[in-house]
């Protein structure tokens, strides 16, 4: 520890601290622009100059290491003089038109200029003008004259984003911040540069000029878009969400947001929002009132149950719904006598349901995961599934974590990969078995009940095993792709075995903001709330494979959210009635539903999300529901009452939450990835033909982001192509860009083919959840490519 005195205050700080860190630790503010606690130190703005006793010149607090006995003055004549001098330089070429600047009111330069600037400028020469740049649909760089060259944005893309997409070109006064010419900034976390920019140079393109900061109220919320549970500040004006910013939470999202978290809100104001209840009569939609719509629903449910029995009804709920909504929907169904309930719409393997002992989750906290010395990620597109977690793992790798991967593509993770196995999905069980076998070899005296004798251990499997065995802490994580994989339960079983032998924690990076909450709430066919025993019903797959007569859809568009969209749509169309509680009237719903009940998205209702690490985060609505839309919990409450069910007399969402979580009990006691013993089949299915790798595109993952116009303008959201390895393209005798017909069973679509040599041969990477591919079948099923017309 070192002793330091700042403005007469004595304190001790750890070795290696800088003066600015020391000052901030006691609440002494030192003005700064380029310094940012999450970025490397540039020391270029010179705003943080302070006086250090015995130093002849003022020193930058951000870059000056504390030495023992150092005496610092942040406010002496020397310091003030230096700071004022720098401020003058910053302003000479800066437009002084704050009233028309988009950053006005939340500009660090503006704030500091008040304290450190002069009233009149001594600079009488012509001011510099810098032409605007195009950084794509999310970030506006139209006013680069405002840039003060702090290089925070440059350092962010390089250090946190993992790839330098923004640079400072030219030299001296002619320096300009820009993306590579003709390219936009494509990082999945690019929007953070907007927050980082201390002036109005980089601003939010969608938000630009739509409101002034002081007109906005700030409300806390939680992101539904992935399993991380990022904390949000939602800024609203006159009942409308105007902007989303990060709420700093070091344990979760730090001070960042993914672009999906940040820009999805634009989908909240979509034209496709469902504003009033609607009923389809003779194929024609009619707007109606709540009473009529709900009566219609009651009649429909009673009718189907009378005609075909309760088992003819299925409930499909999305894990993007709140804990309270999911709890109520399963309660309503079960009270009504329907046991077919599931939220795992994109899953294909339910063999583990019987063996499952608790709520599946990450298996550790996020902080524990990123401080593990070795991590094995199985079946994850990482940067697209969990963009901020991927960024955080990237930082972990810099600090020495070994990142290992099993996937069907050697995707660019923008970080160092210790060992990677790239194989088609059907070979993963054997591949993970190889890791298990290698672990057995490394751990003397260890045994397993699984029969691994016939497995070959590849070099990479051996390296992964060594990495897991040698690390003092390790984790095995199954990503979204693994969770959709037809052998999910087998992969999980193997992760458990490897974890048992190596001491590695194992778990899932859950897909949606409330996937864990959905399990806790009992939106499952074989487990009730908090794991209570229930009469078993059909799972999501079964409900669609053997169609029901009626479906209740909570917050889902099955054509985008299912494992097999073609099958899902067929089931909907065959049903007598489809009742959809939805915030949107998407084309699919309009086609196959019979009644549409407008419900509030997360910004318009109170509720709870439980993140992948089991963190229970409740939030309030930040604006009133749009039009006639109502929070789903209220709709379900009324429906329960109208169906004559007891126990639906709730006054508040807190009541429901309390009932669901048995107020006061420790949620974490319910979290467990452990499966009771299950056999594992290591034989690799014959690989003639191609297998589809049906990924969920980042900006089509949920109903809100699908409808965010700025996100839909990104390169990432472009219409899917069928990606194959170059060798596959050659075998098929096709050329890049050619139109191909992709065939799965009876269904087919035509789209361009493209080469991605990072893919394993034998797979066709073909996204789901996109209008152009909903006619296709299972995400990891056989697929055929033929030359198109």
């Amino acid at each position: 520890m070192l002793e330091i005195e700042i403005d007469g205050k004595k304190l001790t700080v750890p070795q290696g601290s800088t003066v600015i860190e020391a000052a901030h630790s006691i609440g002494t503010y030192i003005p700064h622009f380029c310094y940012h606690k999450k970025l490397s130190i540039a020391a270029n703005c010179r705003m943080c100059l302070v006086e250090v006793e015995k130093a002849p010149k003022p020193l930058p607090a951000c870059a000056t290491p504390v030495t023992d006995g150092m005496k610092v003055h942040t406010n002496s004549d020397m310091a003030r003089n230096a700071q004022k001098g720098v401020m003058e330089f910053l302003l000479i070429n800066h437009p002084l038109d704050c009233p028309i600047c988009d950053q006005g009111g939340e500009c660090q330069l503006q704030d500091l200029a008040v304290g450190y600037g002069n009233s009149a400028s001594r600079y009488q020469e012509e001011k510099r003008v810098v032409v605007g740049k195009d950084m794509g649909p999310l970030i506006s760089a139209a006013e680069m004259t405002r840039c003060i060259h702090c290089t925070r944005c440059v350092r962010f893309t390089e250090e946190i984003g993992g790839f330098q997409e923004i640079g400072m070109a030219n030299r001296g006064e002619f320096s300009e911040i820009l993306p590579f010419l003709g390219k936009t900034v494509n990082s999945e976390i690019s929007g953070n540069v907007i927050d980082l920019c201390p002036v109005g140079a980089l601003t939010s393109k969608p938000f630009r000029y739509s409101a002034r900061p002081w007109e906005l109220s700030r409300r806390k919320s939680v992101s539904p878009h992935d399993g991380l549970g990022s904390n949000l500040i939602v800024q609203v004006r006159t009942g409308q969400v105007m902007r989303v910013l990060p709420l700093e939470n070091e344990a979760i999202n730090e001070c960042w947001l993914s672009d999906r978290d940040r820009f999805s809100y634009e989908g909240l104001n979509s034209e496709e929002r469902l504003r009033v209840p609607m009923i389809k009569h003779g194929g024609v939609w009619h707007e109606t009132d709540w009473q009529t719509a709900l009566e219609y629903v009651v009649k429909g449910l009673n009718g189907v149950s009378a005609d075909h029995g309760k088992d003819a009804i299925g409930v499909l709920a999305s894990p993007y719904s709140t804990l309270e909504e999911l709890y109520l929907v399963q309660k309503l169904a079960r009270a009504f006598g329907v046991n077919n309930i599931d939220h795992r719409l994109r899953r294909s393997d339910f063999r583990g349901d019987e063996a499952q002992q608790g709520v599946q989750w990450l298996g550790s906290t996020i902080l524990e995961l990123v401080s593990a010395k070795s991590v094995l990620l199985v079946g994850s597109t990482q940067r697209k599934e969990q963009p901020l977690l991927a960024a955080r793992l990237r930082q972990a790798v810099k600090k020495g974590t070994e990142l290992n991967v099993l996937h069907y593509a050697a995707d660019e993770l923008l970080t160092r990969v210790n060992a990677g196995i790239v194989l088609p999905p059907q070979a993963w069980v054997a591949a993970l078995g190889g890791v298990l076998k290698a672990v057995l070899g490394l751990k003397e005296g260890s045994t397993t009940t699984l029969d691994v004798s016939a497995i070959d251990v590849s070099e990479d499997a051996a390296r992964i095993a060594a990495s897991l065995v040698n690390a003092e802490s390790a984790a095995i994580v199954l990503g979204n792709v693994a969770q959709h994989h037809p052998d999910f339960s087998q992969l999980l079983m193997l992760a458990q075995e490897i974890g048992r032998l190596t001491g590695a924690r194992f778990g899932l990076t859950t897909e949606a903001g409330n996937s864990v909450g959905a399990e806790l709430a009992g939106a499952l066919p074989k487990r009730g709330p908090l794991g209570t025993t229930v009469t078993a019903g059909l799972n999501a797959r079964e409900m669609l494979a053997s169609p029901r007569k009626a479906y209740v859809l909570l917050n889902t568009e099955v054509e985008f959210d299912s494992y097999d969209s073609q099958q899902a749509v067929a089931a909907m169309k065959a049903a007598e009635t489809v009742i959809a509680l939805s915030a949107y009237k998407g084309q699919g719903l309009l086609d196959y539903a019979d009644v549409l009940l407008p419900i509030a998205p997360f910004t318009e209702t109170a509720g709870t999300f439980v993140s992948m690490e089991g963190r229970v985060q409740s939030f309030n609505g930040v604006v009133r529901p749009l039009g006639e839309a109502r929070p789903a919990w209220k709709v379900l409450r009324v429906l329960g009452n109208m169906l004559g069910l007891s126990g639906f007399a709730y006054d508040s969402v807190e009541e429901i939450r309390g009932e669901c979580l048995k107020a006061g009990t420790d949620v974490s006691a319910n979290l467990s990835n452990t499966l009771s013993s299950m056999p594992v089949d290591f034989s690799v299915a014959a690989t003639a033909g191609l297998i589809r790798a049906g990924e969920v595109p980042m900006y089509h993952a949920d109903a809100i982001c699908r409808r965010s116009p700025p996100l839909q303008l990104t390169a990432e959201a472009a219409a899917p192509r069928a990606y194959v390895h170059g060798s596959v393209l050659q075998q098929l005798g096709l050329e890049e860009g050619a139109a191909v017909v992709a065939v799965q069973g009876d269904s087919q679509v035509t789209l361009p083919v493209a080469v991605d040599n990072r893919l394993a041969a034998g797979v066709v990477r073909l996204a789901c959840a996109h209008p152009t591919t909903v006619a296709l079948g299972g995400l990891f099923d056989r697929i055929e490519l033929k030359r198109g017309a």
Partner: protein
Amino acid sequence: MAVFVKGVIFDGVDTTQPDCWRLAAYEARGGYQALRSILQAQMPQEDVIAEVKNSGLRGRGGAGFPTGLKWSFMPRSFPGDKYVVCNTDEGEPGTFKDRDILRYNPHALIEGMIIAGYAMGTRVGYNYIHGEIFAEYELFEAALDEARAAGYLGENILGTGFSFDLFAHHGYGAYICGEETALLESLEGKKGQPRFKPPFPASFGLYGKPTTINNTESFASVPFIIRDGAQKFLEAGKPNNGGTKLFSVSGHVNRPGNYEIPLGTPFSALLEMAGGMKDGSRLKAVIPGGSSAPVLPGEVMMDLTMDYDSISKAGSMLGSGAVIVMNDQVCMVKALERLAYFYHEESCGQCTPCREGTGWLYRVIHRIENGQGRPEDLDLLNSVGNNMAGRTICALADAAVFPVRSFTKHFRDEFEYHIEHRKCLVEHKWC
């Protein structure tokens, strides 16, 4: 047109001979004997460094830091990679000595760097060469090939088990890369933007590894020091200012060129060697150490000797030894305007005071020169300068301010005349 008087680096070099740079010619002058003697005697590293220390050699790149002392900062027992780097990014206006070392005696530099590598336990060196001297870069590469072929470079040098290799890196037009940490950044393939120090290159240098950087002339002096002894080198100059030094004399003299003379030689003698004032014109001002050094009036200069201490006492710097001589036909406003333009052009752009200040200074001086000066401008210039100097990552901002301060101080009447009369006090002619 280099002219060499008796000295250390150019002793015996006949620059009229096109082959004077070649290995054979160098060896004939006693080249590589210092290296041989060290390697054959397996001279302890600290003894080599002590010898350099004792020679009183001070860095010839501008700052005059004792070379032996700098070498002793290198963590000699550090296990990983370490580097020695030579700074031939000679871009300081008025300086043109290192180019002549490459042209006429590159092996002295190569030998000096190998010895440095030996003394500091490094296996690899780089020479960063100024962008505008491509022919010299190619010639230096040819000299490296000769040295490699002769077994002076590469694995197991002269069969002694010591290995060292040396490569040339060509710059491409950025004065700032002469600053040692900008040079390292550039060598790493980035923009030449100086790094904040600490950490210093001795602990965090090229690729983050311990690194020692010296000027071309500093390295090229080392073989002499080892071969002929520290004492002899020291005695060639004067105490605290050991050795001879190359002075690049430019401007209004009859014979511009490089003069390698003992430190402590009177300026008047140097001026005479350079053929005296051009066409007998009157000496008005001298910048004694490259454009970044404060200008001194001619009459002050005539009383000084050419060494670190004497020039610094007079309020300027010996710097890189670039002596820019100006006669009375030069308008000092015009001269300063050109220098201010240079620093404005060459600021790397990262520090606010330098990026914004160099442009501001230039524009105000430009205005004065063009008859639009205002009475408050001289105070403004000094105030802006005060807000720049000492407040940036590297010394370029200071370098930009020194000329402004010294020109407006020593030749204030010319500036005031300009502002008041909107024209030159002198009948300005560049040459």
